[in-house]
């Protein structure tokens, strides 16, 4: 049996599954025979981990064995204790282990101490009361004392101050050891107990760091060791190295430093790579205290740098990294970059790249050099460096170096532009670098007047085409194109788009990525505008200007108050609401079961709620949402409104079907109408501003899958954007409402409002909501309809329609002036005129892509002033939006971080 278990262990070591035999190993530990028991313990320690289920079967055996009078059994049990006891089981064996500290065999005492050390590592609190045992140190056996040093080292590393009193005893122990007072058996290669010496020196280094008084006690003994150590043997050098570490850590003493420098030079001159390695390491420690030491070893260091040994090279680079000053930064960083280019190991490449960046940021002698360096780093390790670095670089180029010297900034920018134009043609640039390039070219490409817009745009188009699979880069490129054109227009020059650019935009406007689509449309819209409008939308060189956003929407306060006075209910946050919804949910559940068969999040059940009691759910469901919504807030017009549902009711089913067929086309017509897109871009500009102020880049915030890593910033931006959008929403419905006298119009103005209010709210409710909201439009609409149909439509009433209405009415009240006030007070008037013409479409486009179409439809159709049609057009639109919305909210509510996956599920 023993043989089998051993073989099982061997089999597992070779990488095969041996879990079937674990139980036999456990059984073997119960055996009486010493041989079998030991084998069992060996196998168990190799097989199991501390949280394994079978551990519970062993704890009892361990307890018993710890009390055994055969010390081998005890040792085997202690061995198992080290490996298998976790925080919860420590108390079960702790008393026995502590008892063993007084065992007659020193081997057992040693192991017991080590086991306690292990407990300390697992859970420091469990053995805190035993610290005094460790402190006693004195055991008759030096080996046991040596073992005690291990836990003490850990304890001191955590809190050096409470062990200062032990300095004297450590020093005297070290002295005794160094003077060979220990029995001969502790010698190793003629060195007296080197491992104990090393351990003690490490402890002294900890205790003496920054403590002059404690350090003074150590000077003599460390000096003695320096003198006595025999530097021919490996272990002697190990002790010497430890001495250097100690000297470099404690309060500096010139004599010792000298001795250390001597040893270092001996190490560096040695032929052994090991010693060179130690020498370099020691040098990098000592250099903090006395930088001049390095100078005499310059040549040796350079030799190490050119050594074929990779480990040595890396260590040397670490040394160089530590001794970098502004005077030598150029050489060192150049060297590092050369080395970085030469290696393949991604892990180390990343490290070197980040160090290069750090040094360059810290010590850069000139902007020009900095940009060149960053270019190199990006070029060769662009995908490995933190994307923050890219944003820092962009910001740096945008802001200059903080001096007020404009010409220097201009020079910096033009040199950056020049170098990027040179680099841009190269194949295989990392995407982070391309993003920087695109951004800089877009922002400053034409600024110097050196390059024509067509030249820059040609390059940008090339980039976008060459990286057709990378959406982020394409997004950057399109935004850069837009900027270039905008600046051109603003400067009063005529813009003619290059044919390749035109085809690119065409292509992107049909892209699968809604983000790219939106950018493409924006670009098209901007190009058609006149200089004045463009200047407002895309102010030149404004990437560093802050745009203030009123996050609290405080300008709505007065409106809220007023409506409260008029009897409106105060807004109840969604989470407080959900309780009662769940209850009504319960009732209606069975009737809707069919609808939910595809997906089953809890959140899904929210919308099922209240429809049934009032109306038979199947046919009338769509209309229900409309009825309650207008009622409370416009009591005067209730009777008019009441007629609406019937209209939309009849039309709704039919309309829904029609939508299915037409679905693919939505979005285009509205977008292409110039006016709507102009307002669109206005809102965009606001967004732009926000983005730029935060991350110095227009596009990042909207790039869904961008490499931009500061997620939080993105979230923040989006929520700001959301709020802005929400406030923008209010504008149209108000402007509409004012002139409106017929019930239809009111109904119309409210219903888009309903749909919109939910949007922002859902988003605000959770951060994932932001993402999902963006993602929602991605879905093929038919799916949305299928899924949402019965479930979602009824959601509006269930979630307390009144609340929702109110939420959306808040923005409604906000006059458009207020909106713009947040954005740009002075220039608002101009845009407003544009705005009020086609209010809905532009604003809704900010929130979600599909909305503008619907809103636009609704908006345009009244122009025809057929009431019936309004009903028709309106019917599906808000419902459609509501469905999406509810869907979005479900996403938001469900704690899902990965929305793409979710959609895959949805799509089946």
């Amino acid at each position, binding site marked *: 049996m023993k043989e089998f278990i051993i073989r099982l262990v061997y089999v597992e070591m070779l990488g095969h599954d041996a879990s079937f035999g674990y139980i036999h190993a456990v059984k073997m530990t119960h055996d009486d025979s010493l041989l079998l028991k030991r*084998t069992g313990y*060996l196998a168990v320690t190799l097989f199991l981990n501390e949280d394994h289920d079978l551990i519970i079967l062993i704890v009892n055996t361990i307890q018993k064995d710890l009390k055994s009078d055969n010390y081998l059994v005890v040792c085997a049990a202690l061995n198992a204790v080290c490996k298998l006891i976790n925080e919860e089981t420590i108390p079960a064996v702790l008393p026995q282990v502590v008892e063993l500290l007084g065992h007659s065999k020193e081997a057992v005492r040693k192991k017991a101490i080590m086991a306690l050390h292990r407990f300390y590592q697992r859970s420091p609190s469990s053995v805190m009361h035993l610290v005094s045992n460790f402190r006693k140190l004195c055991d008759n056996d030096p080996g046991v004392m040596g073992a005690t040093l291990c836990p003490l080292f850990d304890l001191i590393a955590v809190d050096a101050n409470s062990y200062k009193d032990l300095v004297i005893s450590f020093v005297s122990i070290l002295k005794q050891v160094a003077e060979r007072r220990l029995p001969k058996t502790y010698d*190793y290669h003629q060195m007296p107990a080197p491992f104990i010496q090393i351990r003690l020196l490490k402890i002294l280094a900890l205790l003496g760091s920054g403590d002059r008084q404690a350090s003074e006690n150590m000077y003599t003994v460390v000096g003695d060791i320096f003198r006595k150590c025999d530097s021919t043997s490996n*272990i002697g050098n190990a002790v010497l190295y430890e001495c250097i570490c100690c000297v470099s850590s404690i309060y500096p003493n010139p004599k010792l430093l000298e001795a250390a420098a001597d040893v270092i030079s001996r190490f560096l001159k040695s032929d052994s790579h090991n010693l060179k390695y130690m020498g370099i390491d020691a040098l990098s420690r000592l250099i903090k205290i006395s930088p001049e030491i390095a100078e005499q070893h310059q040549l040796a260091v350079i030799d190490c740098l050119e050594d074929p040994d990779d480990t040595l090279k890396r260590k040397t680079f670490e040394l160089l990294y530590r001794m970098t000053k502004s005077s030598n930064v150029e050489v060192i960083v150049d060297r590092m970059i050369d080395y970085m280019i030469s290696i393949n190991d991604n892990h180390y490449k990343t490290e070197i790249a980040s160090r290069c960046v750090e040094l360059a940021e810290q010590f850069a002698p000139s902007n020009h050099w900095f940009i060149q360096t960053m270019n190199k780093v990006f070029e060769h390790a662009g995908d490995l460096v933190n994307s923050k670095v890219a944003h820092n670089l962009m910001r740096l180029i945008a802001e200059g170096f903080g001096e007020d010297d404009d010409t220097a900034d201009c020079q910096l920018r033009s040199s950056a532009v020049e170098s990027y134009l040179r680099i841009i043609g190269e194949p295989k640039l990392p995407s982070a670098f391309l993003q920087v390039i695109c951004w800089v070219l877009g922002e400053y490409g034409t600024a110097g007047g050196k390059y024509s817009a067509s030249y820059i745009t040609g390059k940008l188009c090339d980039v976008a085409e060459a990286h057709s699979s990378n959406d982020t880069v394409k997004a950057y490129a399109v935004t850069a194109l837009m900027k270039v054109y905008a600046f051109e227009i603003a400067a009063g020059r005529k813009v003619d788009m290059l044919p390749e650019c035109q085809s690119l935009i065409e292509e992107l406007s049909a892209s699968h990525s809604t983000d790219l689509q939106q950018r493409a449309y924006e670009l098209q819209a901007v190009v058609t505008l006149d200089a004045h409008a463009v200047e407002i939308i895309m102010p030149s060189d404004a990437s560093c200007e802050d745009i203030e956003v009123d996050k609290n929407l405080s300008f709505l306060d007065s409106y809220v108050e007023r409506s409260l006075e008029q009897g409106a209910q105060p807004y109840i946050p969604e989470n407080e609401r959900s309780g009662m919804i769940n209850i009504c949910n319960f009732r209606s559940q069975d009737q809707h079961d069919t609808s939910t068969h595809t997906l089953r999040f809890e959140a899904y059940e929210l919308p099922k709620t209240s429809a049934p009691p009032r109306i038979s759910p199947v046919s009338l469901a769509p209309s229900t949402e409309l009825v309650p919504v207008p009622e409370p807030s416009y009591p005067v017009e209730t009777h008019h409104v009441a007629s609406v549902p019937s209209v939309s009711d009849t039309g709704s089913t039919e309309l829904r079907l029609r939508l299915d067929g037409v679905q693919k086309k939505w979005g285009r017509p509205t977008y292409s109408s110039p006016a709507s897109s102009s307002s669109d871009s206005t809102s965009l500009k606001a967004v732009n501003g926000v983005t730029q102020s935060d991350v110095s880049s227009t596009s990042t915030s909207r790039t869904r899958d961008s490499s931009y890593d500061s997620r939080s910033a993105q979230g923040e931006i989006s929520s700001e954007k959301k709020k802005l959008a929400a406030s923008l929403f209010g504008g149209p419905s108000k402007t509409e409402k004012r002139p409106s006298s017929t019930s239809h119009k009111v109904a119309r103005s409210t219903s888009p409002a309903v749909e919109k209010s939910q949007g922002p709210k859902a988003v605000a409710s959770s951060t994932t909501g932001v993402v999902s909201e963006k993602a929602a439009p991605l879905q093929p609409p038919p799916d949305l309809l299928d899924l949402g149909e019965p479930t979602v439509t009824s959601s509006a009433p269930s979630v307390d329609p009144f609340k929702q209405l109110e939420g959306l009415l808040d923005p409604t009240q906000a006059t458009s002036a207020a909106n713009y006030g947040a954005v740009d007070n002075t220039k608002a008037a101009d845009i407003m005129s544009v705005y009020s013409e086609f209010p809905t479409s532009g604003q809704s486009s900010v929130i979600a892509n599909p909305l503008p179409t619907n809103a636009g439809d609704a908006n345009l159709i009244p122009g025809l002033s057929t009431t019936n049609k309004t009903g028709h057009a309106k019917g599906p639109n808000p419902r459609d939006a509501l469905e999406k919305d509810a869907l979005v909210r479900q996403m938001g509510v469900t704690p899902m971080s990965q929305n793409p996956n979710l959609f895959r599920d949805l799509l089946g």
Partner: protein
Amino acid sequence: MIRAVIVMNTQGKPRLTKFYDYMPPEKQQELIRRVFGVLCSRAENVSNFVEADSVFGPDTRLVYKHYATLYFVFIFDSSENELAMLDLIQVLVETLDKCFKNVCELDIVFNYSKLHTILDEIIFGGQVLETSSAEVMKAVEEISRLETASNTITLVPKSISGWRS
């Protein structure tokens, strides 16, 4: 502390592995492969130290020594001294040598449990326990003596049980 001890041959087959922090077997295999990848890419006559951050996470070093067909690899963190670890490998090998009289790879394969016994006497729970190969020998011999004594009723002839235990 010492994180792991690996003995493998020059073909990358593990001969002895001991991880002082638990690693699931699959992870162990992966680590062994990567360690081997690092080791066989290193030239002769270079230092015995490798920074193993990329394999074992931050703050780990690796010291190895090449004997005949075997690599002895110790993986440890910054609380140990590289040169001292190199000597610890020396201690381990010396002890094995004394134990098996001119140790070779086959000895290690056939005396797997004895190898573990020796290692347990040198390193305990990731800390260095004993550095004198004579002391280790003494302890190991006593263990095997006691084991056979408690196992008097055995069908295997003593000569064979000598190398089995």
